[in-house]
């Protein structure tokens, strides 16, 4: 019985990504920023797109569009179908998150150091492997791995970008395609989650309460 109560207490945390919008928008953010970087690389020298400030302004714009879209989509899609929740942040909960984040950063640096020093042939590959592992961890935490197909996505997210980085595609594609792939995997996973969510949860009639 205590387990059942714990399960209900944990449900609101799992509700945050019930619609797949967080995965989808992370995918938009990663793909958008990846395309901006690629565009900056291929733009002719002397072009305004080569400037760091242009990249930073465009990346910030992508970020704010994503944040705004999340709120708008939640209001128009999720709240009309499965309801509205405002999560509770207790002091204990916030400290747990901070402690967890600090531990994660320490583990991440240690892993990066080991990979760079002992395991992988190039620093570029180390960065791609490390970011893939990090996004894999974020994906697992965001989705709670609530369906079997998510394991396929997780493996793709961790393995595919470093494999693509090792292919003989030429400097441009091997530098940028792995990061674009990370974004696309998140985007596709989010699209699948959202499609399943929309199918299972029709909009209820107004004034249901």
């Amino acid at each position, binding site marked *: *019985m*205590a387990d059942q*109560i714990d399960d*209900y*207490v*944990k*449900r*609101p*945390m799992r*509700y945050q990504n019930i619609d797949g919008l967080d995965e989808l928008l992370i995918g938009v953010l990663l793909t958008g920023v990846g395309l901006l970087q690629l565009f900056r690389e291929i733009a002719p020298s002397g072009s305004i797109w080569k400037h760091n400030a242009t990249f930073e302004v465009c990346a910030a714009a992508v970020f704010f569009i994503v944040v705004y879209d999340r709120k708008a989509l939640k*209001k128009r899609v999720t*709240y*009309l*179908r*499965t*309801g*509205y*929740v*405002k*999560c*509770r942040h207790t002091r204990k909960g916030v400290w747990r998150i901070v402690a967890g984040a600090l531990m994660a950063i320490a583990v991440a640096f240690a892993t990066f150091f080991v990979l760079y020093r002992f395991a992988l042939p190039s620093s570029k590959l180390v960065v791609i492997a490390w970011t893939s592992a990090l996004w894999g961890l974020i994906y697992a935490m965001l989705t709670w791995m609530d369906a079997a197909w998510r394991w396929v996505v997780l493996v793709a997210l961790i393995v595919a970008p470093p494999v693509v980085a090792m292919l003989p595609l030429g400097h441009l594609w091997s530098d940028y395609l792995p990061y674009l792939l990370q974004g696309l995997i998140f985007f596709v996973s989010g699209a699948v989650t959202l499609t399943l969510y929309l199918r299972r*949860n029709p909009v*209820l009639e*107004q*004034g*249901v*309460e």
Partner: protein
Amino acid sequence: MLDRVIHEPGRLMIVALLSAVEEADFLYLLHETALNKGTLSSHLARLEEAGYVEITKTYRGKVPQTLLKLTRAGRKAFDQYRKTVKEALSAGA
């Protein structure tokens, strides 16, 4: 002694869900508990009568929305209920 207001399975689900959030609306509880509208409304009325839940009727745009949150008394009662259940289960084990 178990709190009879919270111990009812439907009300226990409601209180457990609300304990983890700042507030939620009626539609969210309907979805998570899988209770029908009438039963959910009846349980919420009982919880409000006991002083455990605060119900606010408002609008989201033009659509009516019912917001629910646990009161301080409700949180305390739920924490006490969980403690009582754990003690009872440990004693029985």
